[in-house]
C-alpha cells in the first residue's frame, strides 16, 4: 500500500447492528452492477445482441423484399430472432456466467456475505430481460425502418412481455449447466445445446418448412413453445394455443428449477 495506513482513530467501532439492510436497495444495486458488468463484456454483447440483430438484418430484412401479406419473413423473423436473442442471453448469463463465478470462488465469497441468494439470481434474471429488451428495440428499429414492419403498440408490448417472462425457464436451464459442467466447457456446452435446439424449435425457420422428423421433435423443445407464443402475439400462427405453450414452459421451468437446485446442492460450492 503506497499510502500510509489509516489510523483506527477515524474508524468507527465494529458494527453489531442487526437492523436489516434495505432489501430493495440490494436488489437494485445487484441488478445495476450485473447489467453493467455484462454490458462491458464485448463477447457477451456480440453473442446476445450482435448475432440475433445481424441475422435479422441479413435474413429478415433481405428476405422481406420477396414476401407479401400481413405476415412475411420480416415479421416472422422479428419475433423468432428476438426469442433466440433472449434465450441466448439467459443461457449465457446463467450457464457460462454462473459457471465461471462458481469456479473462480466469486460465488463463494458472495455467499459469505449477508446478501440474499434471491438477489444474486434475481439480478441475473432481470439483466437477461434487459438484454432481451435491447435486442427487441434494436431489431424493432431495423424492422420498422428497413423492412417497413408495422405492429400496433399492443403487439409490441405483448412481444416484449413474452420475451421478458419467457426467459425464466432458460435462466434455470443455464443454472443446471453452471453447476454440472466445468467452467471452461460451459460456453461450448451452451452453444452446443442452444443452437440445435433453437433450430429445432423453429426459431430460425418455420417448423412447417422443416423435415418431418424435426417437426415431431419440435413440440418437445422449450424454445419451440416460447417461439410459438411470440409468433402467436404477432398473428403468425393460424390457430394459436397460448395456454398450451404457457403450460409447457411452466412445466419446463419447474423441471429445470428442480434439477438446478439438485445440481447446486451437489456442487463443490457446498462442500
Amino acid at each position, binding site marked *: *500500500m503506497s499510502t500510509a495506513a489509516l489510523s483506527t482513530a477515524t*474508524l468507527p*467501532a*465494529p458494527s*453489531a447492528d442487526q437492523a436489516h439492510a434495505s432489501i430493495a*436497495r440490494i436488489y437494485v444495486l*445487484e441488478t445495476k452492477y450485473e447489467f453493467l458488468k455484462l454490458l462491458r463484456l464485448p463477447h457477451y454483447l456480440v453473442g446476445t445482441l450482435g448475432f440475433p440483430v445481424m441475422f435479422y438484418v441479413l435474413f429478415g430484412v433481405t428476405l422481406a423484399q420477396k414476401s407479401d401479406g400481413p405476415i412475411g419473413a420480416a415479421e416472422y423473423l422479428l419475433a423468432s430472432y428476438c426469442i433466440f436473442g433472449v434465450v441466448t442471453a439467459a443461457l449465457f448469463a446463467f450457464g457460462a456466467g454462473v459457471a465461471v463465478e462458481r469456479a*473462480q470462488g466469486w460465488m463463494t465469497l458472495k455467499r459469505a456475505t*449477508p446478501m440474499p441468494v434471491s438477489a444474486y439470481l434475481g439480478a441475473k434474471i432481470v439483466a437477461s430481460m434487459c438484454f432481451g429488451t435491447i435486442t427487441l428495440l434494436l431489431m424493432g428499429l431495423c424492422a420498422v425502418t428497413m423492412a417497413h414492419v408495422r405492429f400496433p403498440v399492443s403487439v409490441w408490448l405483448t412481444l416484449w412481455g413474452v420475451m421478458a417472462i419467457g426467459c425464466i425457464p432458460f435462466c434455470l436451464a443455464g443454472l443446471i449447466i453452471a453447476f454440472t459442467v466445468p467452467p471452461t466447457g460451459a460456453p461450448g456446452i451452451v452453444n452446443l445445446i442452444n443452437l440445435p435446439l433453437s433450430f429445432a424449435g423453429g426459431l430460425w425457420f418455420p417448423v412447417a418448412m422443416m423435415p418431418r422428423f424435426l417437426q415431431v421433435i419440435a413440440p418437445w423443445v422449450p424454445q419451440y413453445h416460447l417461439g410459438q407464443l411470440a409468433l402467436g402475439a404477432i398473428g403468425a400462427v393460424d390457430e394459436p394455443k397460448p395456454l398450451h405453450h404457457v403450460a409447457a414452459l411452466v412445466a419446463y421451468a419447474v423441471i429445470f428449477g428442480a434439477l438446478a437446485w439438485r445440481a447446486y446442492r451437489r456442487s463443490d460450492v457446498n462442500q
Partner: protein
Amino acid sequence: MPASQTSVATLNNVTHRYGSIEALSDVTFDLEAGQVTALLGPNGAGKTTIVRLLAGLARPTKGRAVLFGGDPQSVESRRRLGVMLQVARVPETLTVSEHITLFSSYYPSPLPLQTVLRLAGLESVADRRYGKLSGGQQQRTLFALAMCGNPGLLFLDEPTVGMDVESRRQFWSTIRELAASGRSILLTTHYLEEADALATRIVVLNRGRVIAEGTPATIKQQAAGRQIRCRTHLTEAALALLPGVQRAALDAGGYATLMAADSDRALRALLAADESASDIEIRSAGLEEAFLALTAADQASAVA
C-alpha cells in the same frame, strides 16, 4: 480447550471430508475475542477448510461449528463477519468503487466508501476496473470487500498472497491497527514470519490436525530446533526423556526421529545411552518439517 465465554467462533470435534479425502480430523478450535489468531501450515493442511466451516460456507461432516454463539449460516452471524477468501478472479469489468458499493449494500451499517478505500490503500485506483489492477491491488480490493460491513470479526485466507514486500508490510500494519481497535482476526498463512508478525496466538495445522498451538514465541522455539534421525535400540519413552530432546518418535523400521531444542546436548545423551546408535543424521528442521516428523508418528497432541 473448552469454548470460553469470550470465544467468537468455535469448532467442536469437527471432521470434514471432501468425498473420500479427510480435510479435517477431529479438530477442536476456539477463536477468542480481540485476538489475532494465525492458522499456520502447508498446503492441504486444512486451513481454508476451517475458514469455510466457520464462515458457514459448508457444514462439517461431523462435529459442530459455532459463530457468535449461533449458526455460522445465519444472516445475523454474517452481518458481523468480514471474509477475505482466495478468489481466482473477481468480475473484471466493474471498478473498485462499484464492487465496494455493492458489497456495502449488504450490511446495515457499512463503512463509508472513502473510509474503505483509504483503509485498503485503494484511493488512487477507485475508478479503475478490477481487471486492470495489479496483483497486490486486487488482493487489497478483496480486503476492502471484507471490511466494508465494518465487521467485528475478520477471516483472512492467505491475505498477502501476490503482494510485494512493501505492500505486505503496509498490510500487516493495517491488520495490527484493526486488532488494536478491538476486532478479532483469524488469518491463514504459509509463513511463520507472517504469523509471528501479526498473531497473538498461532495454531499449527498439518494434514487436517492441530499439531501445536501457542504464542508466537513458543511456536518459534519449537520450530528453531533440530531434527536428529538415527537407528537405535532405545524405546520411544526412553528417547523422549533424553536431555535436550523435546519429542521423540520411533517408526516401524527401527528409525527414531528426535526433535531437539539443543541438538548437541541431545546427541551426547543419545550416544551415552546407546553406543550402538547408527545412521545418525542431523538437520535443522523448518517449521513444516519439525511438525511433519511429529505427525508422522501420530503424536498430534497440543504442545503448548
